[in-house]
């Protein structure tokens, strides 16, 4: 009998604890509205949850509003910018509450149709503090949430929030507290890291100047200014122009409002600071103008960078496939009249300019519609790749003289004028040379492009024109001094061999482009794309058997040569574009993983790359997969992260932009000694990588 009693006691304990935990669960369920939707606006879901955390002394209850937005729908920050309206809850029908305080998470900047707004996309949590009137009496939390969400249209939807609870009986819910903290970690708070905050207002120029100091060094800060109240909340503050000098930050920005006259003197404004993982909020009273000057981005220097970058683009690895096109123009310039040389080279230069303007136009459209932008992103489109593959195939075949044999005379003449020495031919050569050169990034070019993509549209066009000027410079030089053409190699029988080589190179490019398409299409589709022209060629040949018999032998020989040649080219290019065997252990790029690794004392090597990026492949073949870098990267204390930009990716574009980059390759090394990261140059070298790895450890 004695042994039975402890046994019963155990069971009693287990049952009691089960009942208790069950009641906990019931309570945890009690304090949420569950997901609320409005049938008029399905892309949005909201819920209101109490975490169960209570501050008895201050009669405060913590809770949050969670909003889930699908696709491109956005909602807004407390100061939405040039358009938008912040979400609002009318608690009028509630009982036993004093007030509800919103804590606004730091927003993102969005630009649609050139209108700048501040808000949120995806999932957002707004933590709230509810002040209860009488702690011991039940509370009815009854509010009407009016949520504005916009894409190109704006929709206002209402949601009824109804929760009843006894403050003293609330029990903390682990899951709700986790979500609350997730949201609260994004809310800027006053920080002792920021000091010496001063603001000044110049009413003549309607500009606000700001200066502050941070104990730690500034990395890549985003500064937002806003004010409360009917007048201040209608003011739109522009994106500030920043000047950072170590720990000191100077900024100027303009303030506009449709309310008659603007006077900010003596007004209190909030400054929100977002700098990598650091977010803070300070407030300051506006005084008289500060004697600071912020460089308005040195356009002159950037244009110079663009010219140099464009010029260097001529000798980047991307030039290889188009070298044939370029040299042909040069070689055939021999023995021509001065005027012809001049016009031909000018036509090539015009083609280069046209391509750069086309790219600028394409980027402008993307920018205005609020899409992600970057250098070489046309290679993220399978249609563009397919189009270029076709064009290079035609050019290559033309150079090898295949059309002369297989195509009907009409088409043959048409193509000949395109790929030949006519002015339109030169123009097209310039255009395609440029379009094919864009998967290469070059020194200086990255800086200039980053500047161009971040500024306004006229500046973007100016920079791209400068890039075109840089790339066309050799062409322009010859067109202005045609005598130079005489110094070029003389045409002769050797040219036929060179022509064959260039034609094969062009076909190799075509195969490389088709290989890129394997990211989008199954292999058999691509194979049939290659086979169709070959079958067509055989068909034409069959016709010619009955026509010109003397050509038959040549044709068969050529075809027999062509098929294995294509196979060989395909194997070589595929192997070249996937240089060596990459057996390094790459993990997908994530900010969380970087922080995790750095805090555990590891070194992180980040490689943002794309299949179509030739500079990336060159870096891989020349540095990353060669000694001594290869062995260093294999060390156990090194974490390798790779971001793949082959296809459009918002996440990776955002990562690149957070480092002021708009293109690939991008490499950066993080470590205990370099938590902010040491960005590496576009073209890697052993020394640069090794010293960055050493410095960061």
């Amino acid at each position: 009998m004695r042994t039975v009693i402890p046994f019963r006691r155990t069971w009693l304990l287990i049952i009691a604890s089960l009942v208790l935990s069950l009641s906990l669960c019931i309570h945890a369920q009690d304090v949420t509205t569950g997901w609320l939707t409005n049938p008029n606006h399905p892309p949005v879901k909201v819920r209101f949850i109490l975490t169960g955390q209570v501050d008895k002394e201050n009669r405060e209850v913590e809770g949050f509003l969670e909003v889930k937005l699908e696709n491109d729908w956005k909602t807004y920050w407390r100061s939405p910018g040039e358009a938008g309206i912040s979400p609002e809850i009318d608690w009028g029908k509630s009982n036993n509450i004093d007030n509800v305080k919103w804590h606004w998470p730091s927003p993102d900047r969005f630009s649609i149709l050139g209108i700048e707004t501040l808000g949120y996309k995806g999932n957002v949590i707004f933590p709230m503090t509810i002040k209860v009137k009488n702690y011991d009496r039940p509370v009815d939390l009854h509010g009407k949430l009016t949520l504005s969400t916009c894409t190109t249209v704006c929709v206002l939807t209402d949601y009824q929030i109804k929760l009843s609870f006894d403050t003293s009986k609330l029990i903390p819910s682990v899951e709700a507290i986790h979500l609350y903290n997730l949201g609260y970690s994004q809310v800027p708070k006053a920080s002792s890291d920021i000091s010496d905050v001063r603001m000044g207002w110049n009413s003549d120029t309607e500009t606000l100047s700001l200066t502050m100091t941070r104990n730690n060094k500034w990395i890549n800060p985003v500064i937002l200014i806003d004010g409360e109240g009917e007048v201040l909340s209608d003011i739109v503050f522009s994106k500030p122009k920043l000047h950072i000098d170590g720990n000191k930050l100077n900024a100027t920005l303009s303030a506009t409002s449709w309310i008659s006259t603007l006077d900010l003197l003596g007004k209190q404004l909030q400054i929100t600071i977002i700098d990598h993982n650091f977010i803070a909020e300070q407030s300051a009273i506006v005084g008289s103008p500060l004697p600071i000057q912020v460089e308005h981005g040195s356009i002159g220097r950037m244009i110079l960078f663009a010219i140099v970058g464009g010029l260097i683009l001529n000798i980047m690895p991307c030039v290889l496939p188009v070298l044939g096109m370029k040299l042909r123009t040069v070689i055939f310039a021999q023995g021509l009249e001065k005027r012809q040389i001049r016009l031909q080279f000018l036509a090539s230069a015009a083609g280069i300019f046209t391509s750069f303007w086309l790219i600028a136009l394409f980027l402008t459209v993307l920018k205005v519609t609020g899409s992600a932008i970057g250098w070489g992103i046309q290679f993220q489109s399978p249609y563009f790749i397919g189009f270029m593959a076709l064009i290079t195939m035609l050019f290559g075949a033309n150079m090898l003289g295949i059309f002369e044999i297989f195509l009907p005379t009409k088409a043959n003449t048409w193509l000949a004028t395109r790929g030949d020495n006519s002015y339109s031919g030169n123009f097209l050569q310039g255009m395609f040379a440029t379009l094919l050169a864009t998967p290469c990034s070059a020194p200086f070019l990255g800086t200039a492009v980053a500047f161009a993509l971040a500024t306004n549209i006229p500046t973007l066009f100016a920079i791209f024109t400068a890039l075109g000027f840089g790339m066309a410079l050799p062409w322009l030089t010859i067109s202005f001094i045609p005598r130079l053409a005489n110094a070029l190699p003389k045409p002769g029988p050797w040219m036929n061999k060179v022509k064959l080589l260039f034609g094969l190179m062009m076909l190799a490019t075509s195969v490389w482009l088709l290989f890129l398409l394997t990211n989008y299409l199954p292999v058999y589709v691509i194979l049939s794309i290659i086979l169709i022209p070959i079958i067509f060629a055989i068909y034409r040949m069959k016709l010619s058997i009955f026509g010109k018999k003397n050509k038959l032998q040549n044709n068969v020989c050529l075809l027999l040569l062509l098929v294995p040649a294509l196979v060989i080219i395909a194997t070589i290019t595929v192997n070249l574009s996937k240089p060596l065997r990459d057996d390094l252990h790459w993990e997908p790029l994530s900010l969380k993983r970087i922080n995790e690794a750095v805090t555990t004392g590891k070194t992180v090597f980040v490689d943002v790359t794309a299949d179509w990026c030739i500079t990336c492949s060159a870096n891989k073949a020349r540095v990353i997969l060669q000694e001594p870098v290869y062995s260093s990267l294999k060390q156990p204390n090194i974490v390798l992260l790779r971001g793949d930009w082959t296809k459009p990716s918002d996440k990776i574009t955002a990562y690149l932009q957070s480092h002021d980059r708009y293109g690939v390759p991008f490499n950066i090394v993080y470590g205990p000694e370099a938590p902010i990261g040491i960005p590496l140059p576009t073209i890697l070298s052993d020394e640069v990588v090794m010293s960055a790895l050493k410095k960061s450890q």
Partner: protein
Amino acid sequence: MRTKRLSWFKEISIIVMIFIVSSVSLDWWHFRNMPQGALPEISIKTLSGQEVDLKAMSEDKPIIIYFWATWCSTCKLVTPTINWIDNSYEVASIAINSGSDKRMKAYLTAHDYQLKTVNDNKGHISKLWGISATPTVLIIKGGEIQSATVGFITPLGLLARLWLTK
């Protein structure tokens, strides 16, 4: 060459068809709840205190009702068009959740808009009409809703719609 042109033509017509279908279905989605045909019985007053009788106004010629908001970004592009058409057609604009009367008046003056505007600050009128998205342009004739568009509209598009209802 001819087949090439034909295929281009095909391609373009497919794109146009997709565009039409998607925009029509989007319009349909936003207008499911809108009262069909007849106008809701409601008396509305403009900022200047003038009573507006939409039925009487639209008796023999089409009029435009424009639902918008000061904070809606696409409205910033559409409002100038509506203000321009105001010279040749009767227009009543209804501003949703855009603040006090004073603020609305200041907004219209600052932008030099002469639109007859009703301040629907609590969204009551738009709810009665079943309108939740801005900008929305309705064309009314003989006291009945003839056409409705949501989102961006060009001056030409608006004129075309007005001619269709004539």
